[in-house]
């Protein structure tokens, strides 16, 4: 989580994003690494938008496989905004992935929450984040 927070602080005042890498056991995801990626949204709008391109997703999946890991989800930051998913987040979300959102207030990460899109796409359900050992 420290790495995710540091990435969000470094990206501030823009949104930062990347991939969550790890393992799935039964229905529980364990994140063991992250892969920060460039925010490819139009430069002037990155204060409230992020984009990970299909090409970067492919490269990310290849890198995850190289590390013996799976892509479990996405992390991104919300500058000066709560760690809650927006309508935009929902419109672009994939099921199954965990979406960790970090609130970065005045350049400081103040907390993260994880969300998973419902199968019917109507809303996100919050997931419990259990810090690792």
């Amino acid at each position, binding site marked *: 989580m420290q790495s995710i927070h540091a990435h969000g602080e470094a990206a501030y005042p823009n949104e930062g994003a990347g991939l969550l890498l790890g393992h799935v056991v039964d229905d529980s995801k364990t994140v063991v690494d992250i892969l920060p990626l460039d925010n490819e949204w139009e430069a002037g709008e990155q204060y409230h938008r992020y984009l990970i391109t*299909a090409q970067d997703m492919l490269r990310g999946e290849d890198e995850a496989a190289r590390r013996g890991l799976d892509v479990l989800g996405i992390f991104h930051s*919300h500058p000066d905004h709560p760690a809650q998913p*927006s309508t935009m987040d929902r419109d*672009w979300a*994939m*099921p199954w992935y965990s979406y960790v959102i970090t609130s970065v207030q005045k350049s400081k990460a103040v907390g993260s929450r994880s969300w998973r899109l419902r199968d019917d796409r109507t809303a996100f359900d919050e997931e419990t984040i259990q810090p690792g050992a």
Partner: protein
Amino acid sequence: MATIRIPTPLRPYTNSQAEVPVSGATVGAVLSDLTRQYPNLKQHIYNDGGELRAFVNVFLNDEDIRHIRGAETPVQERDRLMIVPSIAGGRPA
């Protein structure tokens, strides 16, 4: 038959299959066949207007179909397609 690679988050809707055999002469027809085989996949690939969702990218033999002929791109017997999501979002303005 051609095959289409399913991204990890959509595999729960294809009985966990990572590669699905599909039939159709065009990319549009192949995607229709895919959602015919797995109807619960449809809402994550198409919006309410029946268009491909903005984050759905389709590659044919490693080339983005947008650079070919989009949904009209011809598909051959042994072609390999991939659905690759782009990911976006962000806080309210």
